[in-house]
């Protein structure tokens, strides 16, 4: 699409051919184009890993920070200047492993930030170790006998932590994913999307074909995302043991809560405030 050209950069894309990241990048570009945003209004905050590189490929402002820390970087940006559209992109290692604590608190805080979690169940950039979302039967590097621990369920954690927009997408369904990202843009709060993606190099269990056979769209099942109990039931369908599992995608849960940056805050870009010496004078008087 012609309008997508605005959302690209001169940086060379260094992913493996066939990587699920391409689908996510394409969906994000479509969603950005559809949202009518200008590149200079958007800040993409990338984690470290193959996924975080999206920050450099999207053609907006970016802060490409430390591994695991995309969410607090983004929160700092958003609290300092709520006028910016802030998007976090990170992988399962970044957002669920190294930075898991930040994710839990992001659900609680509910800043108006969109968070795209690239979930391929394996570590790519460090060459094939287990991720928090690796399924127990998957035998990654260092754990040839299997991971033996249940996979992390980010959607269940999000629901438990009071998350206000909890969704799952699939990198193999770009159109569906672009629509989900668009809904997250519209949502005034923490718009979280766990995105299933194959890793063609290191995950030979959860392949594109494997996912394609199992995913189904919640919307076609008349799921009501305002119903927390229904959301919980759908969220617990997967990850789960067994080969006959079905994997729901779409918006599981949505609620209205005030966005964090508007709660008891100056409510404007503090980056643009003029220095006022009288505030300091008055503060000093209080120490007489």
């Amino acid at each position, binding site marked *: 699409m012609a309008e997508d050209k605005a959302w690209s950069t001169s940086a060379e894309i260094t992913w493996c051919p066939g990587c699920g990241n391409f689908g996510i990048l394409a969906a994000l570009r479509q969603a950005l184009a559809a949202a009518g945003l200008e590149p200079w209004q958007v800040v993409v905050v990338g984690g470290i890993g193959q996924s975080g590189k999206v920050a450099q490929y999207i053609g*907006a*402002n970016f802060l*490409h*920070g430390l591994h695991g820390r995309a969410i607090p970087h983004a*929160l700092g940006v958003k609290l*300092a200047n709520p006028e910016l559209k802030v998007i976090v992109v990170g992988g399962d290692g970044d957002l669920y492993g190294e930075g898991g604590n930040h994710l839990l608190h992001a659900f609680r805080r509910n800043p108006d930030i969109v968070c795209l979690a690239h979930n391929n169940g394996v570590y790519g950039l460090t060459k094939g170790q287990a991720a928090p979302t690796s399924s127990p039967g998957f035998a990654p590097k260092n754990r040839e006998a299997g991971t033996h621990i249940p996979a992390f369920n980010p959607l269940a954690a999000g629901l438990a932590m009071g998350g206000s927009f909890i969704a799952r997408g699939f990198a193999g369904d770009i159109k569906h994913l672009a629509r989900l990202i668009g809904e997250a843009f519209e949502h005034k709060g923490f718009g979280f999307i766990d995105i299933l993606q194959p890793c063609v190099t290191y995950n030979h269990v959860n392949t594109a074909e494997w996912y394609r056979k199992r995913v189904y769209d919640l919307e076609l099942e008349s799921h009501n995302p305002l119903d927390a109990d229904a959301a919980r039931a759908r969220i617990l369908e997967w990850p789960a043991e067994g080969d006959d599992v079905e994997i729901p995608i779409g918006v599981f849960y949505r609620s209205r809560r005030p966005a964090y940056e508007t709660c008891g805050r100056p409510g404007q870009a*503090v980056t643009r405030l003029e220095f006022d010496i009288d505030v300091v004078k008055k503060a000093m008087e209080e*120490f007489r």
Partner: protein
Amino acid sequence: MTDITLAIAGQAGQGVDTASELLARTLVRSGYHIFSYPNVMSRIRGGHNFTAVRVSDRQVYSTPGKFNALLAMDELSVREHRADMVEGGTMIAEGRMPSIEHHGQSSNDEARMTIETRNSNDRGRGERADRPTILRVPMAEIAGKHGGSKTMANVVGLGALLALTESGDSPRSRGRDRNPVQSPFSKLRNLLKERFASKGEEVVRQNLACLKAGADHIRERRVTNVECRMLGQSATGNRQSGKRGRLLLTGNHAIALGALASGVRFHAGYPMSPSTPIMEYLAAKQAEAGLVMEQAEDEIAAIIMVIGAAYAGARAMTATSGGGFSLMVEGLGMAAMAELPVVVVLAMRAGPATGFPTRTEQGELLFVTSASQDEFPRFVFAPGTAEEAFCATNRAFELAARFQVPAVVLSDQLLSDSLWTVPSFNLARTRVSSDFDESAWQGRPANSYRRYAITASGVSPRLRPGFRGQLVRSLGSEHDEDGFQTEDKAVRVKMHEKRMSKLEAMAGAMEAPTCYPEETADVAVVCFGSTYGAAREAVDILRSERVSVAMVHLCDLIPFPRERMTALLAPARKVITVEGNSTGQLAALLRRETGIKADAQVLKYDGRPFEAASLAEEIRRKC
């Protein structure tokens, strides 16, 4: 010259901290200078805490010696501090009707209060002089009667303590008659009214009643303490110098005010003693000062948020202690690589690990000079007084922004927690520069901004994200001028050199070491940070004994002032370093940077501050 110490001791939760702050402020308003050091345990209830308030008619810089008077809120305090009292000192202690004999001036009193001396039965009058007089006041009971709750016992005690500053001549009426406006007692009345006004008239009335009842308890006994009485008298005489231009505040508050005076817009932090009051102060100022204070889930998140806010264009800071700083270390390097200005306050305590959470030490100097992997330019400031803490915090913000590097303000529990009297800060001398020249970018071709453009100074123009038509790319990976990641070795060398090339101008922007009272003497005492006060007063003591000694104090530490230190120390016959750690980190740094080997070192690592008299003794031995 007046230089006396009033102390307050008790369990955590008995209001020692509040009472000592009220006492200190009362005396400052009466025209005195204060240095007040809290000696607290890491617990919320029980235990034993005490704060010693040193009162003088000239500026004082270090922790007090023996106590002239002590308000003991519990019995442990009485036992614990007998040996800390000066000859003829007075204790006001919780309790009534002890069985020990009555004697001296109050021997005609009824049993409500007793004056004790330990072992007084088997001592002659001359020997009693070195024992503290103990005045029993049933503070909790009086507080219950007049304040409705024993929590105001500390105010009763304060009233009793301040009654000691009054003339003991005519019972019952002093303090009110003599000079009602200027006596410390009246100052405290006014302070209590201010402090509790927001809690309603009843609370004010109760506090005033408790204060008066405590004072009357002493007044009726015609007890007096010579030094304390002088305090009351000179306070009256000191009316003119009841300086309007004087502040009483902790080092932490001086740092927080310095941040406000530097236009801070964002603070993220995680509570950690002794830095926490900085965060609490800024949180309370959010609406008024237009800033955001975010309590992070951990110190990693704190510095990472600060970096995000700095990227967005806010002047941003965090404050922590050694453990939290250890978690922030990777973030410090991120700020350096992305060339974003952040200010980190590191208030040291004794470590490693949890160490002594509420006590002081200077063991993190070398850590902070090299924290985070690989090499990058940074500033480190180690202020010695509250006044210097205010100014150094302003320099940290200004210079971090000018050079787009991280800056650390190195405090410690002694500087951070002590109450200092300082002249009002001179706001004409603080600066808040504009960190962006956005007008220069109006009308430029779209997408022409290069975040890491190579310049002669190594500093690239900054823009805030959200600038129409331009994109701001910041990152922690090695990058080209546009801000895209690269693995090119030539670009790596160029970018590394760009960052490191700032060092020379950074060194030039720093302030020279403080020399006291002159630049050269036979013996140079070299120190950094909060050791300033004890070292300065030790130098005074030694010079009064005709020892040729001067202090060289380093606040602006990194980049290290090589040339200045080399020149300053060249004429000295002996260089003695004084620092609060066990290996001599300042001495090591001095040798590394200048080749100068300290002739002797004075080291302290027991979690307690240096004390001027004993430090003078140590220096004398090593001269």
